[in-house]
């Protein structure tokens, strides 16, 4: 039997309400039938990012948090452009301005705030706006096309961001502020003055200690009159003096209201079944206007609605970061000295850096950073934890040394509770990030961003995210993230993870499910996806010939004139007179213009016509040397103990054994091996992907060498005693490379990227090696010689010939 879902309605489609729903869907996806009403005609977007949109750093599309598809995927009914006008608390229904009535069992009020408009004459005139939503942002962009002068009333966070945006749009901007110094609610006077200097240098003007009296103009604003009788001309006025919780709906429905909608620690209002969350809510006397508290509240509310245990919401310590390009300002906690507090200051006007820490009872209770805000997130976390910093004050003031996060001193992160919010913009907890790393396999900040949204908005918490990455991923942490090609923004690891997670089985399916921007990909992603799928599903996956490069499709190297070359496999470089005669005869018969020895000790027949390839392969009756593929090329050898005076081991035997073991192996890049029979290393094994050098009584195994574009000497992986161990380690190393590296990434680049130690660690345990060996053997057991296959399959062979001679009709 199916349990009837309870009806949950959210009034408000902003960040707080939808965040609570996101959280609830994770905890209890089946519990509620959800309906959301929003006044704005958009899906849920990140209001904090409006400053970035205005400043040209982001597009409207980029700030959407959940697109319409998200609502659909969770069966959420969304009414955009609907304002809920009344609640019938007895009947448990809500009504909208467009005549929709909907019933609820539980109701969340997430009505946010309204900009506070100064009670002065003229605010109704054209060209007087707030800075709150997408519409305001669009008006500013339009006005900047036609007009030049703008005034921003309010020198706080929002006002300065609006002013910076208008500057970016090419307007002449003055900030009107009632106080003597700007951002007085977040900064002390010294930092504020430095900030003003920076902003003035960017072109912003300031009218300080000015009280606005009246807005002048007929239909459209013309100017602003101040209490001191002075007047400033303007074409646009942006009011950014504050916000007030939007409580009308609650008030008219008989819910208790002060400044905001009064809630307890569980976000419950005075009426049963009705909750409030976000800027509209007032908790213990405080209505917050910043984003982090909204997320903390949303998490508590979600647990409440899901019936999960929660200790409730205990209020938030807040921090502020000014998102103005080129100016770094951060403040947190209580940053103005009170009786009983001590302050440490650092001021460097040559570098434009100012720092202040406020300390009480050996605890950090507040901080102001200007010019260098790198430690902001960490200091903020200390403030929230209330940890004792006795003896570390100066170190904290002068900057935590690099790597402090990973050092014992950085155990702060380790000791931090899992539900502590790391990313205030997107409300991501330490626990969520830790899980993304440990269980989700994220190894870079970019992946964590993609997986959890942490650090995806203002980026202020990036140092903490990096710290957590160090803590949980350690050596595996990487710092790069870019799409594998122009068709996708996903990186290699994300793609491989998604293929595994969703068990995607074809190139087409991967592109479709992971929203490729080009329907059929490009020569960069197609071969890589083909490789990853084959690597992940060796038994099920059918290799896509059409997604391979020309060379690999026709199993020969294409030359500049469209001819091809043939390199037969000669194991370990050891041939015989009979074999040489056969090769020579084929070369003569097919009129091969050039016969040459390759760099890898093999014979190369060059200048062959494509249609002759299958015939030559058939007559040679030798396996393909794979001189054209991302696969094992050759194993180069010296003579070794077979003939050489110095040889300590049988290099030829080892080379032949390795080449027979790994021929036909698909790999991310070409793989070259060499075996030297003594430390003189005549086979130059130390510039190969895997190099084996004999020593008296054993073998040295070297990895990650390259003699090509960027010469790199190998690193010593280990020393082993027996021939079987050489095979075991070579197998384990190559399989680990196959599973971890990006397509087209040679072992040398891969080792540079992930570090030798991580590879040593991965191959350390005999069990792990055995598992890798088993996987590579499974893969190898499924390969066949491509030349033979083509020779014996007419369907493949036809592609080497011209289509039948045309006849006129």
């Amino acid at each position, binding site marked *: 039997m199916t349990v009837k879902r309870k009806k949950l309605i959210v009034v408000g489609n902003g960040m707080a309400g939808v965040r609570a729903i996101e959280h609830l869907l994770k905890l209890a996806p089946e519990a509620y039938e959800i309906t959301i009403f929003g006044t704005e005609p958009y899906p849920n977007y990140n209001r904090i990012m409006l400053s970035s949109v205005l400043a040209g750093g982001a597009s409207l599309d980029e700030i959407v948090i959940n697109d319409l598809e998200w609502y659909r995927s969770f069966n959420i009914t969304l009414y955009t452009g609907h304002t809920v006008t009344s609640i019938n608390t007895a009947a448990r229904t809500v009504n909208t301005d467009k005549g929709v009535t909907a019933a609820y069992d539980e109701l969340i009020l997430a009505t946010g705030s309204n900009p506070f408009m100064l009670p002065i004459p003229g605010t109704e005139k054209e060209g007087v706006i707030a800075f709150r939503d997408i519409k305001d942002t669009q008006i500013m962009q339009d006005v900047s096309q036609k007009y030049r002068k703008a005034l921003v009333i309010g020198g706080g966070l929002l006002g300065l961001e609006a002013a910076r945006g208008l500057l970016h749009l090419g307007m002449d901007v003055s900030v009107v502020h009632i106080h003597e110094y700007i951002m007085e609610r977040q900064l002390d006077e010294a930092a504020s003055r430095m900030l003003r200097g920076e902003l003035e240098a960017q072109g912003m003007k300031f009218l300080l200690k000015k009280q606005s009296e009246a807005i002048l103009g007929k239909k459209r604003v013309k100017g602003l009159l101040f209490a001191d009788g002075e007047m400033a001309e303007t074409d646009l006025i942006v009011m950014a003096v504050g916000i007030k919780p939007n409580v009308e709906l609650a008030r008219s429905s008989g819910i208790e209201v002060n400044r905001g909608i009064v809630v307890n620690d569980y976000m419950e209002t005075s009426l049963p079944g009705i909750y409030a969350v976000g800027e509209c809510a007032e908790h213990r006397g405080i209505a917050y206007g910043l984003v982090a508290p909204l997320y903390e509240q949303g998490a508590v509310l979600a647990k409440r609605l899901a019936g999960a245990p929660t200790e409730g919401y205990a209020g938030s310590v807040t921090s502020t970061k000014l998102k103005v390009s080129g100016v770094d300002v951060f403040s947190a906690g209580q940053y103005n000295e009170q009786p009983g507090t001590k302050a440490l200051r650092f001021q460097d006007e040559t570098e434009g850096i100012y720092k202040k820490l406020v300390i009480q009872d050996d605890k950090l209770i507040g901080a102001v950073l200007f010019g260098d805000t790198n430690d902001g997130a960490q200091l903020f976390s200390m403030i929230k934890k209330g940890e004792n910093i006795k003896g570390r004050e100066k170190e904290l003031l002068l900057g935590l040394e690099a790597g402090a996060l990973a050092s014992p001193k950085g155990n702060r992160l380790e000791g931090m509770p899992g539900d502590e919010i790391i990313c205030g913009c997107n409300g991501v907890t330490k626990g969520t990030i830790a899980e993304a790393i440990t269980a989700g396999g994220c190894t870079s900040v970019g992946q964590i961003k993609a997986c959890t949204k942490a650090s995806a908005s203002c980026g202020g918490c990036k140092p903490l995210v990096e710290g957590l990455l160090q803590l949980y991923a350690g050596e595996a942490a990487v710092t790069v993230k870019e799409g594998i090609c122009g068709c996708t923004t996903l990186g290699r690891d994300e793609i491989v993870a998604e293929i595994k997670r969703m068990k995607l089985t074809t190139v087409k399916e991967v592109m479709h499910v992971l929203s490729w921007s*080009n*329907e*059929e*990909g*490009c*020569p960069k992603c*197609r071969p890589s996806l083909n490789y990853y799928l084959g690597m992940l599903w060796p038994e099920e996956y059918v290799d896509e010939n*059409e*997604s391979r*490069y*020309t060379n690999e*499709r*026709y199993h020969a190297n*294409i030359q*500049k004139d*469209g001819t091809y070359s043939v390199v037969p496999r000669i194991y370990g470089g050891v041939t015989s007179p009979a074999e040489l005669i056969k090769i020579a005869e084929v070369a003569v018969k097919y009129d091969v213009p050039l016969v040459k020895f390759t760099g890898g000790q093999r014979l190369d027949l060059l200048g062959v016509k494509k249609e002759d390839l299958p015939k030559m392969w058939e007559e040679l009756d030798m396996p393909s040397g794979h001189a054209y593929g991302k696969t094992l090329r050759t194993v180069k050898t010296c003579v070794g103990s077979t003939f050489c005076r110095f040889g300590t081991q049988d290099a030829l035997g080892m080379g032949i054994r390795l080449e027979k073991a790994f021929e036909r192996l698909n790999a991310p890049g070409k793989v070259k091996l060499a075996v030297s029979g003594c430390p003189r290393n005549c086979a130059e094994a130390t510039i190969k992907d895997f190099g084996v050098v004999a020593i008296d009584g054993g073998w040295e195994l070297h990895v990650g060498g390259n003699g090509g574009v960027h010469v790199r000497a190998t690193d010593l992986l280990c020393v082993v005693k027996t021939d079987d161990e050489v095979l075991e380690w070579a197998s384990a190393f190559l399989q680990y490379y196959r599973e971890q590296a990006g397509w087209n990434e040679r072992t040398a680049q891969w080792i540079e990227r992930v570090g030798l130690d991580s590879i040593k660690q991965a191959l350390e345990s005999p069990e792990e090696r055995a598992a890798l060996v088993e996987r590579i053997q499974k893969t190898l057991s499924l390969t066949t010689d491509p030349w033979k296959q083509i020779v014996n399959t007419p369907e493949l062979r*036809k*592609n080497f010939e*011209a*289509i*039948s*001679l*045309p*006849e*006129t*009709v």
Partner: protein
Amino acid sequence: MTKLLIGNLNEVDIKGSRKLRVGDTEIALFRLSSGEVLAVENKCPHKGGLLSEGMVCGSKVHCPLHDWRIELHTGEVQAPDTGHVTTYEVEVDHATGSLYLTI
């Protein structure tokens, strides 16, 4: 203008290519995932690369020599490179699979 019977649809793999010579001209024949069969001169305007050997992505082929992209419907070289390849009309008789090329 001559119409030639050049072969059958099943002789060209999907996302694959076959070539043929008519007089002095070598022509590359492509069969797209959409089912269309298109023909262009088998010669990249850049360095004469054989387009028949390139990877087919949608209705474009990437030259195997230097990754120039050519739109097979029009023969136009795609930005950032410029140039043009001659295209030829191909008809498919869906009843028999016969391919006709007009040259």
